[in-house]
């Protein structure tokens, strides 16, 4: 049996299109876990990254943190959290996802603000802009493409890693993979993996679109 046959078996099975285990429902669950994890990570990473980038403080602490965060095994963290917290709804699954996403968001935001051309920043301060105005009206608009890039790679990692939520009996596309492995239904495993990859690609598309909408044409060129 080759992959195409698996896919055909998976996607043509009418049972995979409705109900709690149908693709639309699993898709919603998957998006929900990913979006919540990404939102929490952004709520932590963006403000800290903007602040440290703007003031130039905490660069060393940040890179140490980022290195540490990258070394964390998400799956191990999931198991650990489940042991600690028990089956408390989605929380044990969210913690590794958020931990995974904070580092790229925080570090790229910090770096993006640091890498803004100092000349316009100097000009802005020199013409009497307040410090928050300099950050939000001068640095952020120019750093936006890089910051979005950080959010995008965090989002892609979260989308692919959110499959592990299924391991603690939650939903999402991971269900097909975990259950398929348990029952040796390889068409489900392959189908689930393809869905995850497709969602990751769709995520890239969404970020491209957001970039078109929020990044000034004066900044977008050449990137």
């Amino acid at each position: 049996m080759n992959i195409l046959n698996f896919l055909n078996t998976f996607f043509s099975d009418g049972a995979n299109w409705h109900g709690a285990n149908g693709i639309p429902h699993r898709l919603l669950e998957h998006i929900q876990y990913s979006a919540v994890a990404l939102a929490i990570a952004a709520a932590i990473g963006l403000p800290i990254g903007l602040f440290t980038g703007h003031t130039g403080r905490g660069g060393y602490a940040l890179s140490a943190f980022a290195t540490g965060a990258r070394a964390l095994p998400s799956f191990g963290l999931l198991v650990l959290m489940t042991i600690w917290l028990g089956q408390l709804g989605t929380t044990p699954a969210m913690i590794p996802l958020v931990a995974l996403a904070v580092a790229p968001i925080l570090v790229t935001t910090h770096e993006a603000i640091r890498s803004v051309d100092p000349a316009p920043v100097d000009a802005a301060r020199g013409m009497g802009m307040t410090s928050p105005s300099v950050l939000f009206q001068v640095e952020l608009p120019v750093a936006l493409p890089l910051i979005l890039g950080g959010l995008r790679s965090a989002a892609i990692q979260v989308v692919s890693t959110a499959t592990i939520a299924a391991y603690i009996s939650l939903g999402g596309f991971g269900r097909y993979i975990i259950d398929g492995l348990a029952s040796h239904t390889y068409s489900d495993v392959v189908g689930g993996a393809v869905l995850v990859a497709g969602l990751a690609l769709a995520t890239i598309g969404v970020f491209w679109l957001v970039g078109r909408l929020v990044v000034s044409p004066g900044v977008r060129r050449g990137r």
Partner: protein
Amino acid sequence: MIRIESVTKRYADGTVAVDDLTLDIPDGSITVLVGPSGCGKTTTLRMINRMIEPSGGRILLDGQDLAQQPVTALRRSMGYVIQNAGLFQHRTIVDNIATVPRMLGWDRGRARERARELMDRVGLDATLAKRYPYQLSGGQQQRVGVARALAADPPVLLMDEPFSAVDPIVRKGLQAELLRIQSELGKTIVFVTHDIDEAIKLGNMIAVMRTGGHLAQYAPPDELLSAPADAFVEDFLGTDRGIRRLSFFTSAGLDVTATPIVTADADAAQIAERTLPELPYLLVTDADGKPLGWAKAEDLAPRTDAGDGASTEDGASTADLLPHGRPFVLGQDSLRDALDCAVLSPTGWAVAVDGTGKVVGVTSQETIATAIRGAHAGRATKPAEPDADAPDAADTSAAGPAQAPATDGPAPDAPDGDADAPVKAAR
């Protein structure tokens, strides 16, 4: 007035960038801070808008200590222009220029209207308004930088090497533009440069600084060139400061003669009559009086050689003319320009034109030299009375209008433009 009072700046690492500097910067004029790299010019400038705080001394603006004033309000009252313009790349040109008015609470429409006015003022085409900075040349970006600094009409303008990143031709244009704008607006401008020529061209007052943040000399450009305070300043001014100083002497009153000037169709009698004994050449002009070139008198004479069938034309064929070089505008250009024209001229004589490019006369290097001696003797305050035999006599020429040229021929109307030097004309 901005008064810098015994100001010292010692950076955290111990570098003393400015050492006990005292400087009075007069209102409504351009004061240039000039000196070698690292001498503390930028540090001094940035202490005026408190981008850097002094470690000692104080700076007063109209008698008020800057340290007592709210820093954002202070900066909004001072335009600030930096080397690479520092435009906001995410904003269009109008919105870049409208930045400070918007900060001051103007509504968007009014701020943009003001921005468009300023684009016109600094010589930017209105079609550039909606562009982004990356779509502009370096020179245009720098104009936007100046417009942005002027947008809220601040009384003070601080400029840190604003023109040093553009090529020499564009820089010349920007300098001329700044002088023109300044003649209209009369701002108090503090201008930093490491280029002494730029300082002399733009400055009403020049502060020469030396490494370590010391003031070496503070004087108007003419005085700087004529009386450098010490060897450092003299060295910094370069070897040709005598020639450069001539920029401050007007050519108004310089003797020119219209005698050796003919049109291309002059006949033999005219040519003979107009040839000066000391100059074997005649300047040929077109019917409008614009210069065409120099020709030897004998080459100009109508050819009577009937044997040469082709040569029926009379007068000079313009192809045979020697180039007349760049003429100078009498009364508007300086003696330096006049001398330069004479030195570059193939005949050694400079061509003087009026504002429309019509020839008003020609003049020799000797005549210019006489005028220079006279001007030096008269401290460049008036056109000198030419008197080749007794240059010292110029001292007594206070009342003298330009004397009739020594040579015969119609004297050009000597433009009796005000003889007040220094000439600070946009060139």
